[in-house]
């Protein structure tokens, strides 16, 4: 990005209009393109160099003008030259590539979070406000958006070429990617990891809109329940409250404020509680038992869908005080809470 911004704009706009170049619709796109142009330049230089050598020698030393070959052993100086120069160029590429990598995969602290669940063969996006979308994603522009993604079955890969971002959606593990859209418009979402029969149908659209439009959209498409509220119901209906009721005598630890804190485990290890940790604590509780507690929590593996887990995680994240748990205790007695898992996939 060291050419002047005007030149850059001109170059990329012109290229994009030629339909041979993707649009630059996110903040990282110009950074990725800069490296790309550098690498294309490297390739052209390398190719031209090899081309000049091969064609030049071929013309200069073709048999008709140069019938007598001169035998040459080699040249250490030349060998060194073409070891060191490519090596240097490749090392620059490595450093540049690594910097770009961290730019693309390190979300800024203030980014908003949207969950994405991939399954054969569709994308489900879940906004914190409870808006669910299938094969579509609405995001505001000018604001960093982080996607926390997980797959329900096989590897998928979430790709938005016009944003130059992509990340594998892994079964059994949260992965994240972030972007900040710059231009309003719609862009392709592709699943880029081969995932079975309808892999090529696992596509969708991102709609980037201004903040106002986005707010309007969230208002209109809300289902009335936020993810945390869904999670709260689930928390009650799965009887988590039996142990996690926030009281001193509870068999399970108090979950208020646990998100983002550091826990000490029975084996003395310290862990940071993240989304991934919360999910894992529900599915494989005995693998990291919090100090001071017995490993009595049952596993919920196979009982809660990924969407349900997201709801629970979102709920636990939202617990800053025990107030909500107390409320939940009340709810669990009522018959309001449907025992079905919201969004549970029917086979």
């Amino acid at each position: 990005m060291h050419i002047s911004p005007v030149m850059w704009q001109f170059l990329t706009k012109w290229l994009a209009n030629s339909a041979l170049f993707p649009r630059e619709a996110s903040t990282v796109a110009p950074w990725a393109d800069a490296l790309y142009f550098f690498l294309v330049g490297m390739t052209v230089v390398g190719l031209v160099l090899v081309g000049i050598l091969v064609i030049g020698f071929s013309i200069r030393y073709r048999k008709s003008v140069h019938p007598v070959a001169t035998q040459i052993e080699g040249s250490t100086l030349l060998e060194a030259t073409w070891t060191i120069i490519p090596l240097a160029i490749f090392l620059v590429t490595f450093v540049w590539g690594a910097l770009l990598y961290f730019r693309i995969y390190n979300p800024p602290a203030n980014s908003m979070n949207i969950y994405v669940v991939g399954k054969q063969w569709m994308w489900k996006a879940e906004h914190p406000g409870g808006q669910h979308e299938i094969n579509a994603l609405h995001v505001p522009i000018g604001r960093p958006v982080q996607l926390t993604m997980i797959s329900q079955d096989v590897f998928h890969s979430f790709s938005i070429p016009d944003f130059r971002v992509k990340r594998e959606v892994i079964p059994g593990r949260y992965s994240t990617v972030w972007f900040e859209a710059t231009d309003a418009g719609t862009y392709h979402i592709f699943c880029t990891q081969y995932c079975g029969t309808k892999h090529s149908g696992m596509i969708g659209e991102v709609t980037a809109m201004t903040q106002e439009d986005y707010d309007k959209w969230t208002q209109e498409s809300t289902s009335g329940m936020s993810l945390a509220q869904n999670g709260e119901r689930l928390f009650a209906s799965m009887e988590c409250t039996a142990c996690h009721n926030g009281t001193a005598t509870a068999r399970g630890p108090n979950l208020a404020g646990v998100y983002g804190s550091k826990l000490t485990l029975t084996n003395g290890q310290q862990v940071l509680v993240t989304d991934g940790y919360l999910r894992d604590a529900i599915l494989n509780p005995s693998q990291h038992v919090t100090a001071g507690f017995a490993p009595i929590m049952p596993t919920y593996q196979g009982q809660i869908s990924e969407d349900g887990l997201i709801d629970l995680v979102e709920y636990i994240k939202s617990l800053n005080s025990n107030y909500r748990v107390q409320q939940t205790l009340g709810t669990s007695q009522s018959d309001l809470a449907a025992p079905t898992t919201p969004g549970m996939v029917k086979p």
Partner: protein
Amino acid sequence: MANTIAAAHEHEATASHGHDDHHVSLPQHRHHFETQEQQREAGSFGMWLFLLTEIMFFGGMFFAYLLYRNWYYDAFVTSSNQLSVPLGAVNTVILISSGFFMALAVWAAEVRKKKQLVRYLILTTIFGLAFLGVKTVEYKEKWEKHHIPGASFDVHEFINPAIDAKTGKAEQRPLAPDMAQKTQVFFFLYFAMTGMHALHMIIGLGLLGWLIYRAQRGDFTDGYVAPIENFGLYWHFVDIVWLFLFPLLYLINRHPLQ
């Protein structure tokens, strides 16, 4: 240029003396080898390269084992404690003995003692069979306890371990249900690794039968020892795999509970 030619000739000159006298031509000598020695060295080098591929083949499984052992240590401990150390140790000794006799067989072939060669090969076979016999006993026990991975795998016992009648204490720490599931991973690796090892043994025993037959005919005691030597390499390699399998599978955290 002149130099290199001279060097080459010099080399030949040094190499050429005093070889012809013990150059015997055997019927097993293949036409495309210049000398017997060359054929022999080619054979053993080839065998070694084959063993390299075996190292990498088992290596893949050893790596999987290492990974899951780190991840699911508790499950690995509990399931490992289900295996019988006495049986495993006895089997180790049996296999080492079998290898010992194999080594002696190679020696017998080298010093051209036909009777001994046959005897040692038979001993190798007997110990090999004994190993497989013990293995069968172990596998059978797993079958009865429903520890064969797959549909009928039963983790019940790991969650509620049996109480020792005398001490009244549990024989081992109970596992949480989610960890108990992981014992299946252990048993899968156990069966995959020991099974693959046993398969190699079975192939080896088949070859042994054939070698015994030929040794009896006197094929290997006239200076042509390559098949015996190369089979020996194979057999020892199979031993080595077991030398690692035994501590890794049987001896995880064996000491009494603290």
